[in-house]
């Protein structure tokens, strides 16, 4: 953990519109190597949209995204992967008819990792996929598919990793285990952004959180401090009741 290091990702005044709806409306945050940043906020506050813009799925409509000092807003996903950004998906879509191992092989062959990623066998073993390596991805259960999605991302040796609801659907023992894994990745110098609904999980792993509401950041700091902030309480309680 080295939150004092220079940020690897800087997002400033990010805007993303869908028709007339402002999914992101001036969002700003940064994350440093070795840091785990949490994005929290009620449904529809723009967390996943933020990740989608940073990972190149959507082009931003305004504002700036800088990665290692370079503007990257609007670059295609595969180019961002080559630069060192990767992500997992809320609903992972592995290559179903390929084997687990082949899934990872694609990322190894095309990810253009700058530093050598760990050996495939090691990665699969680390994320409890060793036994199913030769099976088609379609045979995996949803928790295993999430792990495969993560291994696929790690195979490109990213320096910035975006995790979209990785913990959802895992049991408590698995949660503890994956939390340790994510912390270990950060300890090795990876910058990690986590989008999550499980506050306990967020508290356990993040160094810092950004609270989003209606597409903008309304709080930045420790989660413990955030829950004492009247504006944050209002957003969460108001948000919950409104639903």
């Amino acid at each position, binding site marked *: 953990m080295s939150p004092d290091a220079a940020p690897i990702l800087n997002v400033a005044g990010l805007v993303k519109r869908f028709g007339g709806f402002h999914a992101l409306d001036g969002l700003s945050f940064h994350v440093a190597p070795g840091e785990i940043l949490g994005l929290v906020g009620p449904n529809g506050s723009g967390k996943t949209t933020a990740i989608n813009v940073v990972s190149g*799925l959507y082009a931003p409509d305004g504002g700036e995204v800088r990665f290692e000092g370079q503007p990257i807003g609007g670059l295609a996903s595969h180019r961002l992967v080559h630069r060192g950004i990767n992500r997992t998906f809320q609903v992972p879509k592995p290559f179903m008819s390929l084997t687990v191992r082949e899934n990872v092989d694609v990322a190894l062959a095309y990810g253009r990792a700058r530093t050598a990623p760990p050996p495939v066998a090691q990665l699969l073993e680390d994320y409890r996929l060793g036994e199913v390596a030769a099976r088609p991805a379609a045979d995996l259960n949803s928790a295993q598919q999430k792990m495969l999605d993560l291994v696929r991302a790690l195979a490109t040796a990213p320096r910035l990793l975006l995790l979209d609801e990785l913990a959802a659907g895992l049991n408590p023992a698995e949660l503890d285990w994956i939390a340790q894994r994510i912390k270990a990745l950060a300890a090795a110098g990876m910058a990690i952004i986590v989008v999550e609904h499980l506050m306990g999980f967020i508290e356990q792993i993040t160094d810092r959180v950004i609270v989003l509401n209606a597409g903008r950041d309304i709080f930045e700091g420790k989660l413990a401090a955030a829950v004492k902030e009247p504006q944050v309480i209002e957003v969460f309680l108001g948000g919950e009741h409104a639903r």
Partner: protein
Amino acid sequence: MPKLVKHLLLIVLPLLAVFAVAPAVYQNHLLLFNFVIFLILAQGVNIIYGFTGYLPFGYVGFFGAGAYGFAIMVMHLQMPAALAVLAAGVVGVVLGLLLTPLLRLTGAYFAIANLAASLAVLHLVANPALESITKGPYGVSLTGTFNPTLAYEAALVVLALTLGAVVYLRNSSFGLALQAVREDPVSAAMAGVDVVRMRMVAWLASALVAGLAGGVYAWYVSVFYPDNVFSGEFSIFAIVFALFGGVATILGPIVGVLILYGVYNLIGFTTPQYFQLIYGLLIMGLVLFLPAGLMSLATRRGWHVP
């Protein structure tokens, strides 16, 4: 021995050898030639459908365009036949380039847009207004280049090229990446794969193969009409043969052609509608009972199929 070499030695080489020797021992050369053409087209469908998931209902468009490319080169530029076959391949690729915007469509939209494109090319070629260039609906006659022996050998060369491409796809990370794009483009991009470029390469490769096949076909038959070389049956056969054997494998389309086209010729239907009936039923049966092709019978048992 790397798998790629093994596949070349054990599948591609013997198949080519059989078809190279066959004319000396078997009288029906036209039948042999048709076998080779369908092997090429079925593997061409395999490249685009098996590896990328685009179903080319209008695949014959490239074939017909290649045949007419050959004819125009011979008629208007007096090009030697072998060179005109290459030109036919170029025509296929150019048509493929013109149609790349179709790759933005998915599933049924792509299949039907591709069918419409092939019919548009047919109506363009057959338009009496273009008679001075294509001879319109009246057909072309290329007696000057007529040479079935050489044309058959050219077909074998095209087949070798096509099989080589498929063996490469089956054994390379390029082929794996194509399949990844087929399964999920977003995840593939997140594996670092340039999705747009990949699709385009596979699309143009299958267009090239069909264009070359069309050129060779024009050389072999030397007299044909638009309705012959743009006949939807080429698309249907190629797709059914590939599906029957099993796509995204090397062996599947080969087995499909040898069994189905073989059976067809053994029974020797004299009336095309009975043939069409049996093929229609076969297609339906395939989808309902064996959607992943013959080869899936083996893969289901855990055997690896090249």
